[in-house]
């Protein structure tokens, strides 16, 4: 069964540094999402992406965040200048259509020191 893959599984970065989290959505999917989960808290929506542009973003997704689909397979989340409070599990998801269920990757654990 096709899966969403995320790399790396764990990323440790110094505060203030840039970080890029990578995702390869399922190949025939058209809608892509990023969520995050701070330890002990709810999963929170960050951004959705369709047709090479952001469909919706949350208040969390400020100017420090950006997403990109640089080629036909990767979907990346960049945090320009990381803060301690960015430490969380980041999940990528994709769906075939907007009304279809979202399929999740294993997540990337981001630790900011």
């Amino acid at each position, binding site marked *: 069964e096709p899966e969403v893959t995320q790399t790396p599984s764990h990323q440790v970065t110094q505060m203030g540094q840039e970080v890029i989290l990578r995702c390869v959505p399922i190949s025939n999917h058209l809608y892509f999402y990023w969520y995050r989960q701070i330890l002990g808290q709810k999963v929170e929506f960050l951004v959705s992406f369709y047709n090479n542009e952001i469909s919706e973003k949350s208040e969390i997704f400020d100017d420090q965040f950006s997403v990109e689909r640089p080629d036909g397979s990767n979907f990346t989340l960049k945090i320009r200048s990381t803060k301690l409070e960015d430490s969380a599990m980041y999940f990528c998801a994709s769906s075939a259509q907007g009304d279809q269920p*979202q399929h999740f990757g294993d997540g990337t654990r981001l630790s900011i020191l």
Partner: protein
Amino acid sequence: AQRVTQPEKLLSVFKGAPVELKCNYSYSGSPELFWYVQYSRQRLQLLLRHISRESIKGFTADLNKGETSFHLKKPFAQEEDSAMYYCPGGGNNRKLIWGLGTSLAVNP
């Protein structure tokens, strides 16, 4: 504001006992509700969606619009059902709103 509430952080039952994981929602319009499960060291996996009205691994969930609930039920719990369960809701904008999740422990 759109909100999903899972009131139980932890639910512990014995093998063979019935289990009900509670989920309440607050949504404007017609939400679409799901149950996702996360087994230990595995990814979030779709278990059910309310429009499908199907039974997966013996689990069922019925949308009760009057009570704004979408509780997950199974008549006889198995040890392999031990996992974290989430019931996110989605609207027309497709983003999923999540509750805190319920950790189900099925004891032998």
